[in-house]
């Protein structure tokens, strides 16, 4: 159970509530018994189907009943239905589960049932395009998942589902438009790491396919992330994304440029843990990957700065001081 406040009730109040609950409990148990009995005896008719609706309305986590419902459709109802009737039945289930999701946005079983519905939409027999129904459904689905992400921009089930919908669409949406979607999400809230994450995936794909110039686009990303860093330097989402842009640190010039930029921010915000942390990370990358182009004097300066930053970090972030101890050890040995 998540986020349900503990309340102490008197024995009388509890007793009264139990009494009120008894009717509901009796109804639920009777329904459960009936649906499981029908399932056991292999009933696959409309009556059993309607019964699953009633049970799932009371308990959308009852996975066995979802399974039973799908089996009724597949083996009891679809065989004697026209494609258009099948499409209507699936549309009804999609509408029903929207209502469920509004109440239970994190129940896996509801999302699963939607997937199953979408994957079982039949070919459209009348229209010239056999995918017409499917495409209409996928478009609608993208709209639904956008509504879910408007309500909770970090719902990771919704994000996973979004990626699934995008990958399933018969007429794929352009990756550029997905990039624009993440821009909107990030601009609405810089600390939405889910959107930064999605952005890293979309960009990787765009760079690999050659649809976006990696050099130019990476520079734009540095601008975006810098803007976010200055807005809230304590927000770790932004720094994790920045570290992704830097990558393994193969480009010494880039490392130096970003070290200078972060140093500037640290001068303005002298207690910013994430500035210090990132400086240590990038200075260590310089030391590890580019030692041959560094003069001995620069090497020892970098080491000294890392050690100084690490001792400051221990002061500002004592919870993780053992990690900083270990990093000190490793800097001394480079």
């Amino acid at each position, binding site marked *: *159970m998540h986020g349900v406040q503990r309340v102490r009730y008197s024995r009388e109040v509890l007793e009264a509530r139990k009494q009120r609950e008894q009717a509901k*409990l009796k109804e639920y148990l009777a329904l459960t018994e009936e649906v499981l009995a029908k399932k056991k005896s292999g009933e696959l008719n409309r009556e059993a189907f309607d019964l699953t609706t009633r049970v799932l309305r009371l308990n959308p986590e009852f996975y*066995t009943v979802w399974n039973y419902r799908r089996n009724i459709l597949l083996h009891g109802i679809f065989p004697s239905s026209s494609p258009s009737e099948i499409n209507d039945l699936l549309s009804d289930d999609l509408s029903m589960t929207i209502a469920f999701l509004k109440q239970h946005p994190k129940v896996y079983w509801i999302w699963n049932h939607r997937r199953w519905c979408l994957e079982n939409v039949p070919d459209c027999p009348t229209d010239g395009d056999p995918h017409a129904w499917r495409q209409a459904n996928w478009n609608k689905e993208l709209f639904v998942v956008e509504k879910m992400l408007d309500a909770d921009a970090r719902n990771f089930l919704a994000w996973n589902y979004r990626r699934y919908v995008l990958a399933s669409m018969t007429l794929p949406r352009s990756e550029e438009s997905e990039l624009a979607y993440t821009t909107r999400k990030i601009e609405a809230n810089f600390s939405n*790491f889910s959107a930064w994450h999605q952005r890293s995936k979309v960009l990787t794909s765009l760079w690999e396919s050659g649809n976006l110039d990696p050099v130019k686009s990476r520079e734009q990303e540095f601008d975006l992330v810098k803007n976010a860093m200055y807005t809230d330097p304590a927000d770790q989402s932004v720094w994790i994304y920045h570290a*992704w842009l830097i990558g393994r640190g193969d480009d010494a010039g880039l490392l130096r440029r970003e070290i200078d930029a972060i140093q500037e921010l640290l001068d303005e915000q002298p207690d910013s843990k994430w500035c210090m942390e990132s400086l240590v990370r990038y200075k260590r990358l310089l030391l590890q990957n580019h030692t041959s182009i560094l003069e001995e004097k620069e090497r020892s300066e970098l080491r000294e700065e890392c050690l100084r930053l690490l001792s400051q970090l221990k002061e500002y972030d004592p919870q993780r001081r053992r990690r900083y101890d270990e990093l000190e050890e490793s800097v001394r040995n480079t």
Partner: protein
Amino acid sequence: MATLPRLNIPLHVKYIQSLGENKDDLVYHLTAHLRMNAIYWGLTALCVMDHKDALNRDEMIEFVMSCWDEEAGGFGAHPDHDPHILPTLSAIQILTIQGARDRINVPKVTNFILSLQQPSGVFAGDVFGEIDTRFLFCAVLALSLLGQLDQLDVEKTVSYIRRCRNFDGGFGAVIGAESHAAQVFVCVGALAVLDRLDEIDQERLAFWLAERQLPNGGLNGRPEKLEDVCYSFWVLSALSILKKVSWIDADKLIEFIISAEDPEGGGIADRPGDQPDVFHTQFGVAGLSILGYPGLLDLDPVYCMPASVIESLGLRKDWEALPRRVA
């Protein structure tokens, strides 16, 4: 060192015992689809608190066996519920802890589990095919407990986990998904069982995990989210496999977990002031065990079962919890 807050073990034992006595509660019946998992959580928490016998062994084994689906070869969460890999793993864990593995039809359940592997290497939860690295972990763990890992295509399995790895060092539920502490636990756990920790960017991941700790001591599951007791176990399990539990502040986390207990009725909640449940009670107690809390028994962080049970099966991996403190 400052004195640690006291964990009220007798009260939590009573709380777990009382869970089976709520049969006239609607919520008890609305959560029937989690019954098998709930029994496993309750039993593991009791074992860690050294009160394994607080629940009746024979009744528990009979309940587990009443959920066996002979035709499919798997366990459901409750009698007459469909077989699924989650309750199947819980059933195997319960029977193993209770020393009743002889009740399991090993070839049948092995077939059921292997039949759920997809061409990509991930596992589905049941015949309807929802995929998730959680189910992959369940399969790997169950096969390992049954001594059937040699039947698994390890390379195919590991390759799916590899494709779920993100630049922050963490892992997601499916390819492309955001890193999440619970998914990190399942992926790191599966890799530990398969002896493939070389697939992990260990320094990066341990850093990401250490950053889950918030100023109040609690751990969150992803950047910029709220703390929750259940993450205590998921984050700590992965950290102990990476041997970096010391990278977070143990005393502060102990304080946070214990502050989420219900001082009157027993049990632990997701955070202070909330309603307790058996899930958070188990993961809170499990976290405390890894942190070396005095008076608790060792928990194996890979299998999330009593360490003594895993050791007696010869399955112990190379993890490191904090040393047990004396009260």
